[in-house]
């Protein structure tokens, strides 16, 4: 598949309005402005677009939940908090293709009858804020955003809000709380944001990449969009490949692409000719897959079938030198640090898991600690206020499930099992 979202990102000044206009920017918006909101939603439904923020929820359906006849204001909140370890795709889109992004925001606002869109970017994205603000000013000037957009009478204002740097602020209701000036802690659902969201008004929260897909549906037609990739997993997708690969980066493909292709073809394989050990396919919150499970489509449904999730499409590649105990500990360090602390199991459990994992990794653990890890993770998963708690389970449970030997070796000798060639080296050294 030819890249669509990222086709020009490597070219100089790709982010500017002039450059974008030369390459067809805002053509989708022109068409959408001629359509009624319900028709826009209908097109998005027919395109099969699923949210790129993690859960893969059908975007058209989400927009359809916004009550049409509510007298309240409606809001679009863009989730640009991108903090999931291993994920860096939204970043690229915002930095190199901001006008596609704004175009998607305006179309989405029209669809849900919102006049205001807030872009919530993560605290560390200071440099992006500057790019976005510069380009947003140009879009306003050119009449693509603001009052009477392209003479249609449509009015959409876009504001950029930079958070304070908390992973949990990416959870949609926590994001709304944070926008309202409160602690980034999630709200109870229901009510869902589509009914009671920002300032108590109907609100849609969408991911950056999701919105960047929207203009394509209108520019080229939903039929074209729905024809890309496998059934129910349509449209171009960005993959963030990182870890032990020769060419880490963001790659665009349709969702028939396999993990193997992404690792070995797109990202150039593993350095030093070493063997693959494990892959986290969708950001740190998804189950790790062992090396023999990579011949699966990197799609929403393909990865569920393989026992994991597409999540945020952050593919973390680990070679045979990696200790999976260390991986789990490292990730739990992240979750322990980022737990918002609102609910009991996550606040107390993440820290406990981190402590047990650290102990096991240091070689001070016992075999019964492995059972304890499972049990504590299980006491968190499904019991928490927001999905953060569920995200804590995979790093522990799936590494234990597939790499128990790593754990047992740590318990026995205080380090991970060595790859065959390291074991060889040690043998030679010993002589």
């Amino acid at each position, binding site marked *: 598949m030819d890249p669509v979202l990222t086709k020009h990102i490597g070219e100089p000044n790709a982010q500017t309005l002039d450059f974008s206009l030369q390459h067809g920017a805002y053509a989708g918006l022109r068409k959408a402005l001629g359509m009624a909101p319900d028709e826009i939603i209908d097109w998005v439904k027919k395109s099969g677009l699923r949210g790129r923020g993690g859960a893969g929820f059908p975007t058209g359906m989400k927009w359809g939940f916004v009550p049409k006849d509510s007298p309240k204001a409606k809001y679009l909140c863009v989730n640009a908090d991108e903090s999931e370890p291993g994920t860096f795709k939204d970043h690229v889109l915002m930095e190199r293709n901001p006008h596609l992004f704004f175009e998607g925001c305006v179309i989405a606002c029209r669809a849900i009858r919102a006049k205001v869109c807030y872009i919530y970017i993560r605290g560390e994205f200071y440099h992006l804020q500057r790019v976005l603000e510069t380009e947003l000013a140009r879009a306003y000037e050119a009449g693509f955003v603001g009052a009477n957009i392209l003479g249609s009478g449509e009015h959409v204002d876009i504001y950029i809000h930079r958070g304070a740097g908390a992973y949990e602020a990416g959870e949609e209701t926590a994001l709304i709380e944070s926008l309202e000036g409160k602690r980034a802690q999630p709200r109870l659902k229901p009510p869902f944001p589509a009914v009671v969201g920002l300032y108590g008004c109907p609100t849609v929260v969408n991911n950056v990449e999701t919105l960047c897909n929207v203009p394509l549906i209108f520019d080229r037609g939903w039929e074209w969009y729905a024809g890309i990739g496998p059934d129910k997993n349509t449209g171009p997708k960005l993959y963030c490949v990182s870890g032990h690969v020769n060419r880490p980066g963001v790659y665009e493909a349709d969702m028939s692409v396999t993990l193997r292709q992404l690792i070995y073809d797109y990202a150039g394989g593993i350095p030093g000719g070493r063997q693959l050990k494990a892959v986290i396919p969708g950001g740190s919150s998804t189950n790790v897959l062992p090396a023999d499970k990579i011949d699966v489509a990197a799609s929403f449904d393909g990865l569920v079938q393989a026992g994991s999730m597409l999540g945020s499409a952050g593919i973390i590649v680990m070679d045979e030198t990696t200790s999976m105990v260390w991986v789990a500990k490292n990730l739990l360090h992240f979750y322990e640090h980022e737990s918002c602390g*609102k609910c009991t199991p996550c606040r107390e459990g993440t*820290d406990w898991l981190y402590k047990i994992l650290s102990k096991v990794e240091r070689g001070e653990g016992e075999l019964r600690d492995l059972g304890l890890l499972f049990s504590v993770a299980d006491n968190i998963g499904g019991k928490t*206020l927001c999905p953060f708690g569920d995200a804590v389970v995979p790093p522990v449970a799936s590494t234990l499930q597939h790499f128990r030997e790593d754990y047992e070796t740590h318990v026995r000798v205080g380090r991970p099992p060595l790859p065959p060639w390291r074991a060889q080296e040690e043998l030679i050294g010993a002589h």
Partner: protein
Amino acid sequence: METVALTIDGKSVTVEKGKTVLQAAIESGIKVPYYCYHPGLGIDGSCRVCLVKIEKMPKLQVSCSVVAAEGMVVQTETPEVVQARAGVFEFLLINHPLDCPVCDKGGECPLQDFSYAFGPKGSRMEFARRVFDGEGVRADVDFGPTLMLNRNRCILCTRCVRFMRDVDGDAQIGIADRGYGSEIATFKEEGVHSLLSGNLMDVCPVGAITTREYRFKSRPWDNPTAVDTICTLCEKGCNTTVWLKAKPEWAKGAQLARITPRYNPEVNGYWMCDIGRFRLAWIESEARLSQPLVREGNDAQTATTWDHALDTLKRLVGAHGSEHLRFLLSAHASHEEMFALSRLARQLLGDRAQQSCTVSWAASVKSQPEHTTFSVPPIDAPNVAGARLLGLTSVPVGEAEPDLSALRAAVEAGEVRVLYVLDPGPSGSLGDTAWIVDARQSGRIASLVLQGVLESPLAAAADVVLPGACFVEKEACYTNGQGRLQATARAIPPPGQALDDCSIIVRVAAALGRPLDYRSAADIRADIAATRSDEPGLQGIADMAFAQPVATHHWLEASNPMERWKWDVMFQDLPPVKFEEMLKK
């Protein structure tokens, strides 16, 4: 009322539409633990202990956050629920200091009680516990002028945060830091400064917030008796419970251990203010008047018998003629006391009786946040509305200050020879009295009689002192600022030879040769009912019920059933009680 019927643990339960599954469980006596939910503070969904299984829902649900629906089938005791709930309890305790033996909450602590009922047998935690301000007692830090905070004990239910935000109206408490490091904090560690601070001890489900006043004073099992009554320190009339400490011979100190609010949706909700809660030391203090005193000539006062004191009173009144007698009543006087005294005045002074009685009280503007949902009125007395109903004051509704101008003018003019003061309230409840002391000392008033409860400059200046009873020592009726008739209960006896104020008035009347035909306060109430049957604020006074002291064990059954949420776990030993109204919020 629209209702829905659901099944919880095989039992069919009918509740008002809109109530949650947790509320339905509590109403029907089914045990489901909860911390962050509080009937007066609403739902938060954060503690996660109220997990239940609801048919057709794949995940376990927090029952506090699910609205009960027709036909819903709920399970609270399946292995999955029991296991998951125990897991949450294990989490709640892995960092808890477990210093229950030195914690004020121990014995009435929902964390303790629910953990025993629903928690795992033991803990699998082997790492050092989280410590905030220090270990042991060093963890107790100042939390404003009235409270102490122990962050190690806190389970972060945010009840305190929500109380300050939603009830007090000034969000002084927040959570600092996040995740595992989250801690309850006030800005710049200033602590809580609020007239409602004591409620924070009540809402805190653990011993994290305690009051300085009750700190280390008693343990729940040392308070074997509870008495439901009302507070009389302002005209709001909060419904309360007083807790009595067992007081063996050798024990020093007060019997009155504490006062806590009692739910009344019409008056005080779940709350009371700090004045009513903490101002109780005077009741059993050394400063109480406990025997009659008389002064002969310019000598010092001497203790005497009731008979002698009443003789002296008779002699003083006789010497000056009853037409020069005036009465000054504190609005801490009950209906019975006001009515009986005004009857006596009528007998002595006939038509001039009305003018001979003046009612006084103290007023103070309370500084509270603008958006508080619990405001404490300015009138610091329980029965100003009652005085108005009985025609003893003409100060209009809405006016906070009493009107003493007529009495003062009469005293200045030397028309008052004997002034009889009745004040069963705490010090200051008559407002300024220095002018009376001055008038007595300069001889503008020839004789001063004080029927009261506390030593004061006024008592010291009196020629006759008759020791009375304060509000926890007698059964008496008051009409609060809303016009609601309420009653106190007799929790403890008055000190020494002090007597119930009604019986003092009856004795005084007899001594003055104008006996009142009352054998008890009930007779007075019947008389009030007979003569003032048209007053809504006095309606039902003849049949007023007075709460009796009950063993704390049975208090929950005996008291307002809407209180049951408070001792969440005591209810395990009790039959189911309906408390619909409590859950209305």
